[in-house]
């Protein structure tokens, strides 16, 4: 009996060593945030007694998962906090205009679809001072922030005109909202790199936003529906023998880990085939199956930033090693620091200062590195670092595409 009495309840594995507290980026800048240990396993014991013990300050959790990476006991601290927000946070759910703001920030697909056809107008209007003042004052979107511009042509519209029929091997691409509505160039780069590796690209039969913004803004039900749809589409692709590849670390992490842990969507059958392009490509090159040919005249002095979810995935190695294969690439790997944006978090007026304070350490280290470009696998890190340093930020996939021999 005693040998079997080993705790299954994840919260009880916590030894209260506080390593998580030490690595929490929010803890460092915001005294109102109780920190991962108190918000997670400590708070959970009280919430189990009475939901009245729910702490509204849990909204400050960036869901960066650095606490989980640090935990020597395997406590899923970030998941616990996310779940608590979903389960108990409704008593603190924002109503009125701030609720509308959260809904708008969360609804990446809908807002993207509505905005893309009017991209020049929407981009122009969103960037003007009076509109920014209204967004700031009424909707609580910080005026320092500029929404990522919408693209006039969606990635999927461009892709439909691409002929991939010459290939006999395929991968399936989960492009995500950002590539589709805001930055189709990354999708185009993805196709170029995959084609150069000798594979054709398919899209999923149906694709919805991975749901990360929905989850963090309190719309778990909708996120679950989208997750179910995405998993169903992925299963079809996987059944056809194609891996599902991505170009965003956060979408990937969400669909691999948050689906089962936070949304309760089992995905054991999908996980092994769902990964970032850089991980897949590294494997193909390492096994000798794929050989990429790079330009001789490529030159770049860049710093690589490990996004939080990339660190949680443990996959930064693949991106870094691929980048190092490029001749003419002078790469500095930065110390791991959160950039502070955490998706839609940093767009909210009440979070702007914390977001910048967290990012300041990273910005300083980038500026110290004396580079002209920053590389990272996460699009929201890109917005934050571009705003914080003035340097261009690229996805490693785009750099690979640019460095390929034509």
């Amino acid at each position, binding site marked *: 009996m*005693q040998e079997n009495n080993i705790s299954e309840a994840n919260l*009880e594995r916590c*030894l*209260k060593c506080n390593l998580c507290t030490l690595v929490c980026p929010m803890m460092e800048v915001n005294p109102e945030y109780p920190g991962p240990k108190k918000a997670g396993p400590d708070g*959970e*014991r009280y919430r189990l007694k009475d939901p*009245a013990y729910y702490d509204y300050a849990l909204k400050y959790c960036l869901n960066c998962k650095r606490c989980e990476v640090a935990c020597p006991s395997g406590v899923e601290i970030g998941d616990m906090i996310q779940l608590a927000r979903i389960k108990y946070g409704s008593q603190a759910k924002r109503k009125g205009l701030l609720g509308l703001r959260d809904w708008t920030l969360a609804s990446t697909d809908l807002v993207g679809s509505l905005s893309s056809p009017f991209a020049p107008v929407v981009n122009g209007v969103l960037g003007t001072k009076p509109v920014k003042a209204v967004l700031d004052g009424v909707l609580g979107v910080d005026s320092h922030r500029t929404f990522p511009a919408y693209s006039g042509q969606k990635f999927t519209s461009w892709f439909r005109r691409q002929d991939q029929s010459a290939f006999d091997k395929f991968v399936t691409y989960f492009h995500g909202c950002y590539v589709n509505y805001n930055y189709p160039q990354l999708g185009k780069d993805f196709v170029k790199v995959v084609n150069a590796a000798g594979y054709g690209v398919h899209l999923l039969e149906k694709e919805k936003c991975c749901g990360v913004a929905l989850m963090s803004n309190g719309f778990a039900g909708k996120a679950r529906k989208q997750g179910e749809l995405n998993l169903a589409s992925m299963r079809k692709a996987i059944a056809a023998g194609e891996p599902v590849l991505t170009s965003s670390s956060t979408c990937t992490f969400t669909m691999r880990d948050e689906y089962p842990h936070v949304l309760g969507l089992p995905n054991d059958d999908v996980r092994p085939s769902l990964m970032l392009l850089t991980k897949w490509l590294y494997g193909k090159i390492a096994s000798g199956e794929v050989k990429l040919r790079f330009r001789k005249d490529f030159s770049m002095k860049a710093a690589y930033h490990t996004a939080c979810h990339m660190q949680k995935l443990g996959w930064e190695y693949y991106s870094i090693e691929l980048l190092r294969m490029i001749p003419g690439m002078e790469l500095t790997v930065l110390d791991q620091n959160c950039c502070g944006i955490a998706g839609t978090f940093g767009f909210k007026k009440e979070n702007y200062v914390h977001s910048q304070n967290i990012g300041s350490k990273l910005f300083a280290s980038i500026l110290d590195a004396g580079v002209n470009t920053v590389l990272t696998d996460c699009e929201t890190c890109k917005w934050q670092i571009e705003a914080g340093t003035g340097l261009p930020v690229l996805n490693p996939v785009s750099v690979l595409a640019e460095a390929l021999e034509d």
Partner: protein
Amino acid sequence: MEYDVIIVGGGITGAATARDCAMRGFKTLLVERGDLCDGASGRNHGLLHSGGRYAVTDREGAEECIRENRILRRIASNCVEPTEGLFISLPEDGLDYQANFIAKCREAGIDAKAIDPKEALRLEPAINPSIIGAVKVPDASVDPFRLTDANVLDAQRHGADVLKFHKVVSLIVEEGRVKGVEVLGHNDVSTKKIYAREVVLAAGIWTAALAEAAGVHIGMMPSKGALIIFGHRVARMVINRCRKPANADILVPGDVVSVLGTTSDKVPLETCDDMHATPEEVELLLREGVQLVPSLATTRIIRAYAGVRPLVVADNSGDGRSVSRGIVLLDHEERDGLPGLITITGGKLTTARLMAEMTADLLCRKFGVNRRCETAEKPLPGSDGRKARFEDPVEQRAAIGRHGGEVSKMDFSQGREVLCECEQVTRAEIRYAVQHFGVRNISDLRRHTRIGMGTCQGSFCIRKVAVALAGELGDPSLADTFVKEYLQERWKGMTPVLWGDTLREGEYMHKVHSL
């Protein structure tokens, strides 16, 4: 200096008796050799019985329980959590007992309602899914520490004196009458005598020895009960087994933990000062407990402990569990020809108020006064309906949950920092405990706040707490001793359950504090 009444024993019985005596206007002194709740009152389930457990075997006890249960929900709303309870029948128990159980509960006035097993599982998903029957009863969870504290505070507010850390070394018997007690303080070298018109022994199992010294024999049977504490709430309701009372058939949600118990073994009187649970008892509790709630098999055990029931052998004897756990009020003037001495013992945490009422009634008769008992009507300190709410500042909620309206006496502007993180105890709460309960060390502080009772058992926070407490007591040099003493005491409870996460915690504690 002479009191009307000296009450010996600062457990729940003594505390409740002191309150009643003080409310009836007697000049009252409560003497306790250690801290409040140092004996069985601090080592039990924390169960507010509905009476269901006794309905079949002890009608009188069951009736007392349900009556007191209703009273305590009213006067001690802060200490009682109305979790309600279930009596579940497993296939091997059959349903015959259940039918009789319900009938007997109803006879005793306990609202026992059979519910469909499916409904029971919906109400309480943690219970064994193979149940064939369930009965809902008005059991509840009660915090024995807070209940004792509240009684003592109220006694003091009605003029009673409280002398803690003073051991009664003998009863003063002069001219064939008990005239008071001789006490020795913890820091004293010589005893002092305190006189009273009546002395009430309410010292649990230690009553026997005190009475014996005065030449009075009370046949007491120390019955050891071991319990184990699980790290969090696995069930929301009190879960009982619907069968003849046996080992490990009650699981109680207490504050943020779950308490499983108990055992019942006769032990020698002289071992009662050093009670601890053994690995064999833990094994037995766990084996039976998983029948109630299967997930207990994979839930972390924080510690195991044991208390001693002060069972009294009726003057013409009995044995083992058949000994009634009923209230025993002995008027030694009548029974042994020794005036000035009364014993109140037996009973339960649930019926302590009634025991006090019976004692105070007897005192009224002895003093020839007629004063009505008001303890069932007046709420206890803190029990003014104040509950932790979402709107309260987060660092205050745990304190409000524990102390109810008493939080108004805590100054959170000077001490909102949380020192014990598992149990969310702030400096303000520590200061309150020091001011109102005269604590000497961290173990004392624990009884009045829950400090160090959480998952880490003090590993992480105890040094902060020690430094804060030593500061409050005005002697910073005490901190090191506090830490050492406290961790030794925690080890006692961790040793019988040292495996899995608790073993890891133990190793961590060991390394951090270089024990």
